[in-house]
C-alpha cells in the first residue's frame, strides 16, 4: 500500500515473529544437521569430525539397503493397485449413472484418510493379531502376521493402501473435473463408446494428475514412519527390522544417541526424495515432448 511508504519498517514488524520462529526451528537446525552429519557426537563431550564416514557406514550397511528397498516396495506396490481402484471409483462417482447417491459414497470412501494413523495402525494390529485377531479367528490359525519376515510388510502396505484410496480418489476426482465435458460430447458424436473415451480421452488428459499423485505418494512413502512403528513396533517404539522404512532407521539412531548418524540418514532421505521426484518429473516431461 502506497500510504504506508513513510513507515518502511511496518511490514518487517509483521513478518518478524514468523521469520524468527522459522529461523530458530527450521533454518538453524537444518544447517546444523548438515554439519553434524560429518561428525560423531553422542550428545555430550566434544564433536569429533569424521568426514564422510557416517555416509560411508550407512551405504555399507545392509539394513539401510533393506529399508530402502522396502520403502520402494511400499511406494510402488501401493501406488499401482490403489491408483487403479481409486481411479475407477473416481470415474464411477463422476459418471451420471450413479446419480445423487454418489454424494453419500464419497465421504464414506474418504473416511479412512480421516482416521488418525496411530489409531488405524492399532486397529489393523487387532485385525492381524496372532491371538484373537480377526483374520486368524476366521481362518482358525494363530499366525503372527506382524512379526513375520514376509508378511509384516504386506500388513503395513494394506493399511497404507486402505488409508490411501480416499486421498487418491479426491485427487483424481479433481483431475476429472478439470476436463472439458465438450470433448466427451464431440467423441460421442464421432461414435466413440464409453471405454474408448475413457482410455483415449480421460487417461491421457489426466497425465498431469497422475504425475502429481505419483510424486506426492513417493515423498510420503519415503517419509513413512508411524505405520511401521505402531503396527510392528516393540516397546521402545522402534519398528521391527522386517517392516521398517528409512525414517524408522533415523529414529533408531536418534534414540540410541548416534546423532551424527541420524543427521546423515536425514540428508540421505532428502537426497532420495529430490532425485526421485526430479526423475519422475523429467521422464514424464520427455514423454510429453516426444
Amino acid at each position, binding site marked *: *500500500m502506497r*500510504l*504506508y511508504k513513510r513507515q*518502511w519498517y511496518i*511490514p*518487517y514488524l*509483521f*513478518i518478524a515473529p514468523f*521469520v524468527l520462529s*522459522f529461523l530458530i526451528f*527450521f*533454518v538453524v*537446525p537444518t544447517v546444523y*544437521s548438515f554439519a*553434524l552429519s560429518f561428525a560423531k557426537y553422542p550428545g555430550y563431550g566434544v564433536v569429533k569430525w569424521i568426514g564422510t564416514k557416517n555416509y560411508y557406514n550407512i551405504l555399507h550397511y545392509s539394513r539401510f539397503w533393506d529399508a530402502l528397498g522396502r520403502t520402494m516396495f511400499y511406494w510402488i506396490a501401493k501406488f499401482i493397485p490403489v491408483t487403479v481402484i481409486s481411479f475407477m*471409483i473416481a470415474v464411477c*462417482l463422476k459418471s451420471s*449413472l*450413479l446419480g445423487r447417491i454418489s454424494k453419500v*459414497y464419497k*465421504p464414506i*470412501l*474418504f*473416511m*479412512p*484418510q*480421516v*482416521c*488418525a494413523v*496411530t*489409531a*488405524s495402525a*492399532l*486397529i489393523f494390529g*487387532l485385525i492381524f*493379531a496372532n491371538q*484373537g*485377531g*480377526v483374520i486368524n479367528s476366521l481362518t482358525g490359525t494363530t499366525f503372527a502376521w506382524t512379526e513375520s519376515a514376509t508378511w509384516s510388510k504386506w500388513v503395513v502396505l494394506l493399511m497404507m493402501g*486402505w488409508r490411501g484410496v480416499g486421498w487418491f480418489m*479426491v*485427487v483424481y476426482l*479433481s483431475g476429472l473435473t478439470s476436463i472439458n465435458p465438450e470433448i466427451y460430447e464431440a467423441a460421442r458424436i464421432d461414435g466413440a463408446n464409453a471405454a474408448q473415451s475413457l482410455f483415449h480421452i480421460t487417461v491421457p488428459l489426466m497425465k498431469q494428475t497422475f504425475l*502429481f499423485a505419483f510424486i506426492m505418494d513417493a*515423498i*510420503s512413502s519415503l*517419509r513413512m514412519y*508411524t505405520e511401521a*512403528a*505402531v503396527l510392528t513396533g516393540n*516397546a521402545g*517404539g522402534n519398528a521391527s527390522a522386517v517392516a521398517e522404512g528409512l*525414517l524408522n532407521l*533415523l529414529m533408531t539412531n*536418534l*534414540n540410541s544417541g548416534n546423532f551424527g548418524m541420524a*543427521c546423515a540418514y*536425514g540428508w540421505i532421505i*532428502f537426497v532420495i*526424495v529430490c532425485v526421485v521426484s526430479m526423475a519422475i518429473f523429467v521422464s514424464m516431461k520427455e514423454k510429453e515432448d516426444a
Partner: protein
Amino acid sequence: MKQSSLSKLLLHCFILLMCLLAIYPVYIMISGVFKTASEIALNPGGLPSSLSLKNFERLWSYNSGSILRSYGNALFVTFLHTALTIGLSSMAAFAFAKYRFRGSKWMFLFLMATMMIPMELGITPLYIMFSRIGWLNTYVVQIIPFSANVFAMFMIRQYMNSIDNALLESAIIDGASHLRTFTSIMFPCCKPVLGATALLVALSKFNDYLWPKIMVTDAAHTPIMVILPTMSEKTDIFVIPKELVMTGCAIVIIPLIILFICLQNVFMSSVTIGSVKG
C-alpha cells in the same frame, strides 16, 4: 436400455464393496468397544453381545487416569499450537500480500522453496537443542516449534491477495493504525480461510505421532496419540487389553469422523492443495 441398467448395477456393487472395505476396520473398532476381553478373544470379528459402555469407564480409570489426562494434553497442545501458528502466519501473510518492501519477493520465494525440505532433517539438532535448554518433556516443545508454517502462510496470503486494497486504504484514511487495520479489517475478512487453515493445522498436530514420541517421554505431558500404542506394549502387561485399546481408538477417531462429516469440504480440499498426506 437393458444394458445400461446392468452396468448401473455393476457400478453400484463395485462402489458398495469399496465402501464396505473402507468401513470394515472402523466397524471392528466400534464392535470392540462393546466387547469384553474374553468376547474379543473368542469372536473378534463378530457383533458384540451387549451394548454396555463399561469399557469407557474402565478406560477412564486405566493406569490411574492417564488416558483422560493425555487426551486433555492433546487438546490443550493442539489448541495453543494452532492459535500461535495462525497468529504468526496470518501476520506474515498480511505483510506479503499487502505491502511492498525490500526483499519481500525473494523472501517469499525462499520460504516456498523450503516447503520441499522435510522436517526430519532438523529433528536431531532440535532434540540436542531442546535437551540443553530443558524443553524436553514440556508442553512448550509441543506448542512453539513449527509455528512458522509456510503452508498456512501461503494459503492465507492467497486469500488476502483477493481482498480489495480500497477497503484497507479507507481504514487508514479514517486514522486506523497498521495493527488495527490488520486486526479489525483484514482478520474478519479472512475468516473462511483462517478457519480452514486452522482446522488443517490442528488436525496435523492432533494426529502427529513422531514429534511427541521423540520429545516427550514423561507421561504427564504426553498426548493421546503416543499413549495409545503403549497400551499394547508387551513389557509391563502380558495380556494386551484389546477392548481398551479399541475404546481408546474410538475416542480419538469418532470425534474426527464427526468433524469430517460436518466439514467435508475443508478435509477434502487439503488433498488437492497438496500439503498434507498423512
